[in-house]
C-alpha cells in the first residue's frame, strides 16, 4: 500500500518475506531529494520474557486492517514532521531468533525530523498496529502481553 501526501512518499507492507534494508534505502536515495535517512530494524530476541530459550515467535495479524492502521500512523507522522519518504515493512508469520521483524525508514532534509518520526512510528506500531505476538518455548507457548508503558508513552507525543 502506498501514497504520496504533500511530496512525501509513504509505502507500507505487511508480509511474511524478509526485507533487505540496503535495497530499501537505495530506493529512497534514488529520489535524490534527501538530507538524512533514519532507519530502525526490530529483530527477534533469542530469549523470551521468561529468560528461556525461544524456539520461535509467531506474529498473527488482521489481514486487511494492518496495512491501513500502519498507513494511518505514517500519515500522522507526515503531518507532524517535514518528511520526504516513509517506508514501513512489518513481517508476520513464524519467525526465529535473529530474524527481522520490522523496518521503519524515514527520510527528511533534517536529521532530527528523521530520527523523531522513526521513533514516533515505532512507538505507535507497538500498540496501534493489529498484530499479536506469541512466544513458543520448548515446553509451552504464551501470548506476549502488552505493556502499560507502551500505551502511556503515546501520551508523550
Amino acid at each position: 500500500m502506498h501514497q504520496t501526501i504533500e511530496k512525501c512518499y509513504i509505502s507500507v507492507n505487511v508480509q511474511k518475506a524478509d526485507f533487505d534494508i540496503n535495497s530499501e534505502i537505495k530506493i529512497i536515495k534514488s529520489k535524490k531529494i534527501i538530507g538524512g535517512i533514519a532507519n530502525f530494524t526490530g529483530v527477534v530476541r533469542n530469549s523470551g520474557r521468561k529468560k528461556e530459550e525461544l524456539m520461535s515467535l509467531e506474529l498473527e495479524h488482521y489481514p486487511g486492517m494492518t496495512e491501513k492502521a500502519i498507513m494511518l500512523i505514517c500519515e500522522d507522522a507526515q503531518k507532524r514532521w517535514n518528511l520526504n519518504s516513509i517506508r514501513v515493512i512489518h513481517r508476520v508469520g513464524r519467525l526465529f531468533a535473529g530474524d527481522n521483524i520490522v523496518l521503519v525508514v524515514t527520510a527528511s532534509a533534517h536529521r532530527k525530523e528523521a530520527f523523531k518520526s522513526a521513533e514516533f512510528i515505532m512507538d505507535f506500531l507497538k500498540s496501534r498496529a493489529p498484530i499479536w505476538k506469541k512466544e513458543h518455548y520448548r515446553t509451552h507457548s504464551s501470548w506476549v502481553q502488552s505493556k502499560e508503558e507502551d500505551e502511556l508513552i503515546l501520551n508523550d507525543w
Partner: protein
Amino acid sequence: MKILYFSWLREKIGVPFEEVEVRSETVSDLIKELINHDHKYQLAFEDIKSIRVAVDQKIIQDLNVSIKNAREVAFFPPMTGG
C-alpha cells in the same frame, strides 16, 4: 455479519471468524447476545477491559457505537506489534 477473533480470544472461541445473524444494534449488545448464545463466549469475554474492538477495521473506544450497517466486527486483546 462477520465476526473476527484474534490471538487468545480466537483460541478461546475456537474459530478465527464466523458469519452470524445479528440482532444487536451496538457492540455492547452484540457481546451480550454472544454470551447468551454459548458459554464459550462468556469465558472469552470475561475480562472485557482487556478486549479491544474494531468495527469495519476501525478501532472503537465506545462499546455503544452503532453496528447497524457494519460488515464486520473484530474482537482482540491489546496489540503487540513492532
